[in-house]
């Protein structure tokens, strides 16, 4: 019983991280109908920026994290404004092919800049942990969970309580009506992609603190984001949290019975089950419209 409780707790902590990661992928998909296959590479760029900021500039992690977010935010804005907006009116396959190609380009850019070596930051948090109700919580995991939840709440606040959030939601419902309401839609699209990028950057910074990474490791993050978004339902913040938690818990539970090499297989099995039994995801497809009535 104690063991199961510990595993569920580990799953929840990991799930919070998955939820935050998936939001950057989900908002771009939900608002612009763009499946960003380069998302994992943007996470890797966040991880590299964090590592350089810490190791070469000697910055504390708390300063490296916003720097990583700023880098991928800027990258996201420029990519959408300069390139993706030109494809926005066309078929979804065009944007899919574009982000597929973008992913290849970013992977190779990372290979040139940082080589294929697997890197990690020197263990920032060590093995230290604290205990709650007899369950052990490593500081590193707890910090990642806290930052991820803060990002999630921040995104919720942005979407529901700011003029920019209002513009993003309006654009996701009806781009033409948004234009007629005075919203500069190409600018809002670029900012949405930039916000997705910033979340990827923060995710990358969190990855750098606790996991090893390499240019090719990004793909598995894209895949996980995809699983979480489809599990929870597209474009929903509660959906991303539920999808993330579910994936985190199931992955951890599976490691009790199966070799850890099956981790991804378990996630995808879960995805297939949800797609068969409830194709619109657990939370349905409500877009970024969860508003208190």
């Amino acid at each position, binding site marked *: 019983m104690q063991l199961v409780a510990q595993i569920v707790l580990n799953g929840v902590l990991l799930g919070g991280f998955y939820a935050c990661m998936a939001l950057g992928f989900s908002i771009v998909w939900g608002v612009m109908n763009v499946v960003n296959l380069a998302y994992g590479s943007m996470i890797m760029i966040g991880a590299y920026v964090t590592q350089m900021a810490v190791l070469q500039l000697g910055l504390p992690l708390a300063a490296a994290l916003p720097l990583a977010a700023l880098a991928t935010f800027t990258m996201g804005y420029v990519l959408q404004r300069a390139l993706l907006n030109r494809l926005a009116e066309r078929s979804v396959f065009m944007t899919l092919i574009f982000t597929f190609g973008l992913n290849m380009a970013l992977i190779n850019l990372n290979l040139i800049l940082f080589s294929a070596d697997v890197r990690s930051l020197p263990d920032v948090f060590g093995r230290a942990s604290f205990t709650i109700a007899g369950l052990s919580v490593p500081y590193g995991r707890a910090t990642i969970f806290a930052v991820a939840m803060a990002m999630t709440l921040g995104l919720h606040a942005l979407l529901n309580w700011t*003029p920019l959030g*209002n*513009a993003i*939601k*309006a654009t996701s*419902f*009806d781009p*033409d*009506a*948004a*234009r*007629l*309401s*005075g*919203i*500069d*839609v190409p600018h809002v699209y670029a900012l949405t992609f930039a916000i997705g990028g910033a979340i990827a950057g923060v995710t990358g910074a969190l990855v750098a603190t606790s996991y090893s990474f390499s240019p090719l490791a990004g793909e598995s993050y894209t895949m996980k984001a995809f699983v979480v978004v489809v599990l929870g339902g597209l474009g929903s913040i509660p959906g991303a949290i539920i999808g993330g938690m579910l994936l985190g818990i199931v992955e951890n539970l599976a490691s009790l019975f199966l070799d850890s090499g099956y981790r991804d297989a378990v996630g995808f099995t879960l995805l297939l089950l949800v797609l068969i039994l409830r194709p619109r995801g657990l939370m349905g497809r*409500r*877009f970024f*419209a969860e*508003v*208190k*009535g």
Partner: protein
Amino acid sequence: MLSVRGLSAGYGGLMAIRSLDLEVKAGEWLALMGPVGAGKSTLLGGLAGLVAARQGEIRLDGEDIRLLPPHRRLRRGIALVPEGRRLFSGMTVRENLMAGTHALADPGMRRRNLDRVCELFPVLAERARQIAGTLSGGEQQMCAIGRALMASPRLLMIDEVTLGLAPLVVESLFAALAELHRQGMTLLTVEQNVPLVLAHADRGCVLSGGAIVLEGPAGVLRDDPDLPRHFIG
């Protein structure tokens, strides 16, 4: 106020409007009528910037705005309530209204415009926190007009205000438009209910096949025995 010369507009290669001239004077209510497919919605879309205007000029107070995107035209005072209302259906009434304020130069105007809209349509204040998609048809139309008014327009264009609404609701919407008109708003409305709109408007235009075929003061058009002929496509 608005002066259109030789305007051609349409979707793709198809020009629904061909070298059209139109004049809208400040403070007047101009009713645009015509059979289905005459190009009425395309004309309003072209004026608002939603439909590409290929040729001609659209002058607002002398300045050619033909190539400006919709949000910059709205900033200069041209608002369109599109056909079918096009509310942000999953957002609240209040959020829909606030979505109309993005082109406002002075954010301080938000509060004032919100008060004005709620005064014109008190039901929107009561329903402020309701999801717009769950409003009745008439309330949705009020919300759509309210959203356009939130941008402080000088010229309000409305496409098919009465579409699919009960007579009683239509009456109260027209009363609201008449009130706006009385306050000095310039109105350009597309309407199928010809007798109703000619009872309120100052002037009318009949559009057919992408061109204006009949034009005149509302009182004259009302009694024109030729008027119905233009509606038979």
